[in-house]
């Protein structure tokens, strides 16, 4: 699992960091994305669905944590 800490970044950087990590590390299957931007509650799942990735909200405190896996079907 690869950690992507975007807690200090505003929209659109979490999505862009995730996208960059996805293309930079093609072998990596699971990413753990953390962010504070509440817009991410809808944005990250929307992005993941669009990109054919599985996405699970792990924590919804002041920091949002998403587990992102590829491909979508591998999310149990």
């Amino acid at each position, binding site marked *: 699992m690869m950690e992507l800490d975007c807690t200090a970044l*505003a929209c659109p950087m979490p999505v862009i960091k995730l996208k960059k990590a996805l293309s930079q590390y093609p072998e990596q299957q699971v990413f753990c994305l953390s962010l504070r931007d509440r817009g991410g509650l809808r944005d990250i799942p929307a992005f993941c669905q669009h990109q054919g990735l599985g996405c699970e909200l792990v924590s919804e405190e002041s920091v949002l944590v998403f587990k992102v896996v590829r491909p979508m079907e591998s999310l149990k």
Partner: protein
Amino acid sequence: MSGRLSIIHSKGSLDWAYPTFILASTAAAMDQEVELFFTMYGLECVRHHTEHLRVSPLSNPAMPVRFPIGPAGFQKVDWRPWLPNLVLSLPGMERLATWGFKRTLQQQGQLPFDELRALCLELGVRFTVCQMSVDLMGLTEKDFIEGVQFAGAASYLAASPQQQALFV
């Protein structure tokens, strides 16, 4: 490619530059083909120096006026209702508002404009500058950053999606 986004950007102020470049970078990250067309004052967004991109509270009646420094309670106060427009028109107010705007963006984790712009180019967003506006503003191609192309309305229309465009 999964879709295309095209935005006509005509504003020459810093606050309006953000929505366009945020949408563009996000769309590019979502594999869309993105075309930004800069016209009129929007040209300022693609010049070498961007310090002249400012924020003017005077021309934005809905813009809150807050101080990005000091105690938290103080920072929350919106001074707009107590500030006559005459005060906002004083020399230096635009600089002050711009400083406050940049500082607030930074506090919220937003990128400085130049970095956001570079990011868009890196993600493959196409920048097209309206040649007519370049001539109108008395500028030349040397005044613009690398990576932009110069063209007119027909090129934009030929390159933009059939049913969607945003105008900022």
